[in-house]
């Protein structure tokens, strides 16, 4: 009888320790998850900012200004244009 009780006590202690450990692990993992989530939010914000930047740099008027001014590009003379028909 006493042996059984001792055995049960040992099992109980083991279970209790297991519970504490798993709870601790769960909380640790959860805090990792939270950190990743906030990183995801930050990255999303960053993405928005980059999109904004890309739009600003890629403004049609800016591209045109640089193409005409800095790079000296111009539309080709229509007589020198050959149109390649697709699928014909």
């Amino acid at each position: 009888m006493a042996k059984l009780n001792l055995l049960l006590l040992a099992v109980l202690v083991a279970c209790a320790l297991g519970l504490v450990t798993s709870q601790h692990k769960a909380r640790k993992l959860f805090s990792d998850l939270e950190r990743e989530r906030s990183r995801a939010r930050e990255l999303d914000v960053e993405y928005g900012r980059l999109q904004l930047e890309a739009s600003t740099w890629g403004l049609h008027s800016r591209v045109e200004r640089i193409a005409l001014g800095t790079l000296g590009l111009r539309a080709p003379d229509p007589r020198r244009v050959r149109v390649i028909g697709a699928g014909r």
Partner: protein
Amino acid sequence: MTSAVGAAAQGLVRLPVWRARFVLFALLVAFGALLARALYLQAMKTDFLQERGDARYSRVLDIPATRGRILDRNGEALAVSTPVKSIWAIPSDVAFKAADKRKLATLLAMSERELDKKLAAASRDFVYLKRQVPPETAEAIARLRLAGIYESPEYRRYYPAGEVTAHIIGFTGVDDSGQEGIELAHQDTLGGRAGSRRVIKDRLGRVVEDVQSIRVAQDGKDIVLSIDSKIQSLAYSALKTAVEHHHAKAGSLIAIDIRTGEVLALANVPSFNPNNRTRLTGAQLRNRVITDLFEPGSTLKPFTVALALESGKVTPQTVVATAPGRMTMAHYTIRDVHPAAALTVAQIIQKSSNVGAAKLALALPRESMYGLFQRVGFGAAPSLGFPGAAAGRLRPYKTWKPVEQATMAYGHGISLSLIQLARAYSIFATDGELVPLTLVKSASPASGEKLISTETARAVRAMLETAVQPGGTGPRARIMGWRVAGKTGTAHKQENGGYAADKYLASFVGLAPVSAPRLVIAVAIDEPGGHDYYGGSVAAPVFAQVMQGALRLLGVPHDAPLEPLDTPAAEEAREST
């Protein structure tokens, strides 16, 4: 009794029984008190204590929701929210040194006087010092560690394309809710809903457990518009140049892909910068394409002609007597700029003859004219889901007098918006179908209601092509590489119930390429100054510029040889409406 006897025998003093009883009783009383206290705490004050306990580790966190982005059809950002901070103060708690105050004022980009004035409102226990401060500035302020100065997160909306897309996108207020344009129209979709949740935090402030979600946060959804920002930008700059060149009051333009009914560009001049909205006037804010009504003038003639062809009474070659270039009805004289003895129906469009159009209209029943105008969408606000869309004025046919029916044939006595006019022209571009418009990108081809027969639509399209050939009213609308069809309009503006002698509205509506129409573009220039006020010389060049660029950007196959165009100036016809 053996032990007692034993104890006595060993000479031990026997204590009185009551002492043991007393100790037992005292212990019992103490236990009782403990039990009562425990019961009291557990049963009566449990809520309060639980709350106190939770307060040590559990916190309610706000979950911010971001507003959805607005993108153009190619995924380019047109409106994006980024986090900023608002700086606020509790004036009664504020106490800082002069040096700190100077630093704060510099960081907030305001003078110390201004700062003092804001803080002087001591009666209030909350005052915004500055809203929408960049995160870096807010961080610098936080580093000063000033008492009574706080910050809270906010979002600010940025519009990278600025004035180019201002009228379509609209803008949001400081509270991040839409106030104009798409921002207002799609507020429900774009606007997020902030949530909150209860969590357990550890000693270091890390969230370790989610206890309960109080309200689920919902981020706003992105909206993809039908707008093509390249065509939009091209349209805006062409329009702006034309308005400046002709000293006009305003201008507007709309481009529609008639296969899908998508609006590819919608531009207005004057515009405004949505990123900096100080000193805005109503004239700048107005989305003229949608809200402004005007008498369309000659651009309405094709509808009269289409109806005449539908009635079967005339063909494009039927000759209509237009001599002597004017016609008097009930004290009102209808005039032509180029008087001709007789014109074919096709020439009425080409030369933009008012007399011819009036004669065609008078041969038609009022009901059928009214019916077509109504079916193409005049007199009813377009179902765009856009705030402030104007309906225009189309009076019921029973009140029409014959002279009014005649003038309506060339677009007088009826008012409509540019978007209504552009949409109505889709019947000539699609073999008779009226295409429903959308500002949101759609993948499927639009299917519209068929209003006129395929033969009529093609016949009118052919006439519209002659109108932009040398000898017509709008040769400057032609472009290299594609066949174009369209109609000019030069309407006197209405003022104080009559027509202003020297104020015009020059317009042009056209489609291209004629062999397989893809785009309809409508241009209106309001009050061009100087002698050049005709639709063919003011609005048509803008049309040509935008149409050419748009067709190239869309990769539409050419249907005309790539040869430079030249128009002898003398071959351009004028018009009076």
